[in-house]
């Protein structure tokens, strides 16, 4: 653990910022995550969100469940980079990036992006960029459980 992280953990004032990028096993509430984002500014007028959920089919096959594995440390680092670049490059006020790991039941939440801006156009652009980028650069892997067995999914062959 770096000195920066120790300092952050000791300062409740910056707790909110650390909570805006997370990789966690537990499910999350969109209302609770929205609260974290919204209390950062009263200037927010447009919030675009993406929620990825576990579908019961993938490329024509039935799927019974999914297990996500992540590279602890690097995954968080990449998600922090995505949040910072989205804020800087798209002129939005705040961005939250949250991904679950472990076993996910069909229908459950997997990933959440919240991009909050003054106006909706930049919120949508930042949100869409963030989820596209997340899928490109974040070391998270997906094992699909199907009636024929388990398959590590290659979304980017």
């Amino acid at each position, binding site marked *: 653990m770096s000195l920066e992280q120790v300092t952050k953990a000791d300062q409740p004032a910056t707790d909110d910022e650390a909570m805006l990028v997370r990789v966690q096993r537990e499910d999350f509430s969109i209302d609770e995550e929205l609260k974290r984002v919204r209390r950062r500014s009263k200037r927010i007028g447009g919030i675009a969100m993406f929620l990825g959920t576990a579908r019961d089919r993938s490329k024509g096959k039935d799927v019974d469940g999914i297990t996500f594995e992540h*590279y602890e440390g690097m995954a968080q*680092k990449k998600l922090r980079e995505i949040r910072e670049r989205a804020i800087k490059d798209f002129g939005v006020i705040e961005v939250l990036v949250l991904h679950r790991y472990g076993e996910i039941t069909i229908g459950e939440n997997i990933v959440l992006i919240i991009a909050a801006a003054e106006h909706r156009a930049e919120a949508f652009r930042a949100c869409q960029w963030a989820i596209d980028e997340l899928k490109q*650069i*974040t*070391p998270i892997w997906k*094992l699909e459980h199907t009636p024929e067995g388990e398959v590590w999914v*290659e979304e*980017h062959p």
Partner: protein
Amino acid sequence: MVTIQLFGMTKMLAGNQGTLSLSLHDGKRVKDLVSVIDAAYPKIGELLQKKKVLVSVNQEIAHEDLEVNDGDEIALLPPFAGGNR
């Protein structure tokens, strides 16, 4: 001696080991690491040659010419699949 973290299909291809411990004798670059892995685990080696599996050093994707030093955090990264499309 370097320790390499494995994830997803590379862990499976190494017999479900979470880490590999390897000795680097003939050079200290990422490409030398890839040669040693290829000798021990040819299926992983093939994916590394095809760049389907990438090597990260200290949590960044590493070029094959990058030198590996003691204490570096090394991992093999199969293709990512974050969330659903």
